[in-house]
């Protein structure tokens, strides 16, 4: 047997002995980005389909959670930068070849849309008369007028320009929804492409990562909506959507591993880390079994009228999505070309 022993005299911090430039914040950012993409996509999708009156949690609450996720994700990304004071350099240029640049710009576009979306539903979500905190009412009084006699529509914006803008948005939500749906898909795919664009990292360098991360993001979004909603119909709908998404995800992963097994030497070497090697247990237990298979079985059982608390499959799917990204970022940096 031919063997090779490689000894390198290099000891650069975070590069040797194994690459560890991206630690927890990048996978967290990818996870939150995917989750936000999922939530925003469903909000937009239900609106485009004209079902925004039925899927109240999706269109009203989902985008608020998505916004929080994006903000936390961006903070994680910023924390990861080693030269953070220069982050504005991201916005001095658009580099179509660089996935990081794509991501920075997509987030830049999606955040204002997300804000407009939340703004357009604010009146439905927050009846001011229920607000017990006096100081919030006082602050709010700067921009809104209250009318306690009409409980169903108890406040309005003070300035006409805001009222007109709101009217304009609410009149036809579809254009906003279309823009949001497209950007959400770009965001979801981007979380995968950020990794797959690196030909230096054999684990990441596959086109399937884009669709796979998108599917995973959509399924974590659906899982969270399933947990958040109190409406039975909405919950069952997302449970069904999740079953479909999990099956697609399992298919993609199988397809991906098969492709690698039939690939060149480096790909066979790469996939061996997941089929017997270092990452086998972590990956199979957390992602395949806990994160996909068990929730899939539970959700099918629920459809068959077994009593399953929705939080269990929901949290498992979210856990699977989170673990998947951590394992991918970690393993991707460990597995490298040998020469």
């Amino acid at each position, binding site marked *: 047997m031919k063997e090779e022993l490689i000894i390198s005299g290099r000891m650069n911090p975070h590069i040797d002995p194994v690459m560890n430039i991206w630690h927890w914040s990048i996978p967290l950012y990818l996870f939150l980005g995917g989750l936000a993409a999922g939530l925003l996509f469903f909000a937009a999708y239900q609106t485009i389909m004209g079902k925004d009156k039925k899927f109240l949690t999706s269109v009203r609450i989902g985008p608020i959670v998505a916004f929080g996720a994006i903000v936390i994700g961006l903070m994680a990304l910023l924390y990861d930068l080693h030269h953070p004071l*220069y982050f504005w350099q991201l916005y001095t240029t658009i580099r179509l070849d*660089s996935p990081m640049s794509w991501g920075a710009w997509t987030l830049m576009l999606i955040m204002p849309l997300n804000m407009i979306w939340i703004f357009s539903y604010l009146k439905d979500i927050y009846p001011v008369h229920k607000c017990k905190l006096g100081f919030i009412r006082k602050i709010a009084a700067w921009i809104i007028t209250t009318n306690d006699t009409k409980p169903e529509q108890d406040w309005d914006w003070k300035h006409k320009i805001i009222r007109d803008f709101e009217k304009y948005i609410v009149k036809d939500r579809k254009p906003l929804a279309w823009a949001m749906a497209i950007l959400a898909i770009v965001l979801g795919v981007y979380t995968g492409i950020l990794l797959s664009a690196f030909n230096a990292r054999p684990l990441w360098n596959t086109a399937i990562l884009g669709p796979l991360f998108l599917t995973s993001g959509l399924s974590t979004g659906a899982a969270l909506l399933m947990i958040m909603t109190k409406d039975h119909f909405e919950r069952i709908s997302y449970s069904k959507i999740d079953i479909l998404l999990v099956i697609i995800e399992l298919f993609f992963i199988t397809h991906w591993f098969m492709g690698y097994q039939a690939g060149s030497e480096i790909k066979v070497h790469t996939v061996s880390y997941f089929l017997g090697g270092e990452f086998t247990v972590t990956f199979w237990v957390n992602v395949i079994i806990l994160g996909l298979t068990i929730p899939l079985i539970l959700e099918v059982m629920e459809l068959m009228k077994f009593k399953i608390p929705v939080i269990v499959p929901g949290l498992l799917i979210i856990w699977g999505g989170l673990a998947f990204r951590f394992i991918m970022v970690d393993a991707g940096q460990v597995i490298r070309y040998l020469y």
Partner: protein
Amino acid sequence: MRYAMAIDTKKCVGCSDCVVACQTENNIPIGYSRDWITETVEGTYPGLHLQIRSERCNHCEDTPCVRTCPTGASHVIEGGIVKVTPEECIGCGSCIEACPYDARYVHPEGWVDKCTFCDHRINNGQDPACVSVCPTTCMYFGDLDDPNSEVSRITAVRRIKVLAAEAGTKPQIFYLV
């Protein structure tokens, strides 16, 4: 113009003079290095084959590090030399992940640093520091577009290999084997 380097693995003894020369010349922070020595032993005893190489950024022709940089801090200058502008670098690490040779590192000040082929020396007509100190003169530097340069002449007659050609970056450091 296309700067390149040829390194003779038959002459290199792994003394690390090139590493120290670079650290001194370029004021590299302690504990870091832009070039390094790799030793590989291949085969089964007694049929062993030892190779010693001085490695650094390959100043690739097809540069994934430049492609994935979101700000343009990583760029290619005249002669195909790949450089980083510290004032434009946000330290995102994309270029580090993109390099199959792990030839870059994050400078303690936050920006990404790497081999520059000592372009400040080349501009004065000198060889890069590593090339100029090598006690076995195993390194050849020059312009590949000039058929009379040292590097063109030696790569024309000797058998050469590049590292991890399958990563597809068209490296411009040629190892004479």
